[in-house]
């Protein structure tokens, strides 16, 4: 069962059970809906962006442990970051999960706590669960009207 613990790390389970920044954001000036048609996960990401900086972020929705924890930890990871920093973070997160060789983690890697999701790489069908919130965030930043989808 060691593989399972790689996926369901304590930190992930903690965020699943007690998601941070959960709920509507009244002052949001960007928002987007995300949907994973494979498993029915749905979430909404609310952003308050000021001078190109993510001043506040919250999310709402229902999903599996991985998608909920990923959304929760994403909100913690991007608060206070610029748009460009946020995009770079998503790029690195995505690379960690989908790159052919993954990534070499650096000391004080910009991913920070998000490295707990590195185990998801071994579960290809679950990668979309981990990236749903990020795709939705991307859509919100770009003011896309169509719901973000993992497909």
């Amino acid at each position, binding site marked *: *069962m060691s*593989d*399972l613990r790689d996926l*369901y790390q304590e930190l992930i389970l903690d965020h699943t059970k007690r998601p941070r920044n959960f709920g509507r954001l009244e002052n949001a000036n960007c928002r987007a809906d995300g949907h994973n048609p494979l498993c029915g996960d749905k979430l909404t990401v609310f952003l308050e962006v000021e001078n190109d900086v993510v001043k506040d972020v919250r999310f709402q929705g*229902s999903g*599996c*442990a991985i998608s909920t924890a990923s959304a929760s930890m994403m909100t913690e990871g991007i608060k206070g970051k610029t748009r460009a920093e946020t995009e770079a973070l998503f790029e690195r997160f995505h690379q960690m999960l989908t790159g052919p060789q993954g990534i070499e983690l650096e000391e004080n890697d910009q991913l920070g706590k998000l490295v707990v999701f590195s185990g998801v790489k071994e*579960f290809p069908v*679950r990668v979309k669960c981990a990236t749903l919130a990020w795709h939705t965030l991307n859509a919100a930043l770009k003011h896309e009207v169509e719901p973000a989808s993992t497909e």
Partner: protein
Amino acid sequence: MKGLSEVRAPETLRTVASLDVARIREDFPILKQQVNGRPLVYLDNAATSQKPRQVIEAISRFYSEDYSNIHRGVHTLSQRSTQAYEAVRTKVQRFIHASEDRGIIFVRGTTEGNNLVAFGYLRPRLQAGDEILISGMEHHSNIVPWQMLCEEKNARLRVIPINEDGEVILDEYEKLLNSRTRLVAVTYVSNALGTINPVRRMVELAHRQQIPILIDGAQAIPHLAVDVQALDCDFYTFSGHKLYGPTGIGVLYGKPSLLESMSPFQGGGDMIASVTFEKTTYNKIPHKFEAGTPHIAGVIGLGAAIDYVQAIGIEKINAYEEELLAYATREISRVPGVRILGNAKEKASVLSFTLEGVHPHDVGTILDQQGIAIRAGHHCAQPVMDRFQVPATARASFAFYNTKEEVDALVNGVRTVMEVFS
């Protein structure tokens, strides 16, 4: 031609009172493997079932020895292939107790069968304001084709509600039938809940008002003895791959008089009697609905699958699976936090459940790590999920090759899930 798609069933299967499951499992090569370091426990049979070597070998033998195109060549191989193909039509006719083999149309699967009825039968007959009646537990394949038609024709799709146990409410059904209803389309067995619907009664009620009825038999065919004449349904659809046969082949049964009144669904070769640039005369049924070169090897495989199932006996299969489902239901109910969806009095082989505080997707991953294959998701039945206000369920579905030991593995697996999330 004798022997081409015949299955030489193990003799013991004919004589033992209950199923010799150990012997049966020997017939399924795929079951003898380890997944993630554990023996495979395959409990996703409602999605698709595994194939016995008798089916695999029949297809291989057909391609190795008899294969050619059908209905056209004068040469020997073409004659052999044609005979084998048409022999399976008769086999299907007997298997579902149809009156004539020309009421058996080979299609790609249940979905194509439902669509053929939607577009070949109902579309020319449907007017604005007309109604199509389905149940609240349909698979998307028995919702979307009707919805498409309703949109096109400005007709109305109406839905028979289901109760808390996952059974259709017959009184409501009766009230919904009316002079505008042009077709009833209802599943025999629910893929998401396992409910066996009282289809005989539903046919009777529809016919009282001269309304034709289609039975979606995808989930029923591997578990229940089907007699389309006793049911008196107008159409019956099923897929080969859920009946231990190959993918890409299925059957639409229709009453011959209805099929004759229908226009072809697709034009092409084999479905014609004669073609000029001015006019084409269509072939007779069933060929009118089988345009182009069909899935010949798929048909041969389906025939072998029917032989296999009949050699064991569908009643025996049904009795064994019923016992297995009852055992699984009892054992899984003992795990704290388990909620079973679908508690109909009549059920077949499907155990749909949720675990408190755990998303079904995570249940699926953790069970897979223990070699246990179940389905997690909405099972192409989103309205059922909405009805029970869950985003998804975990679903274990059983076949006659499953054992009580495998049920125990499932229950232990579910306990492990609860431990991970405790």
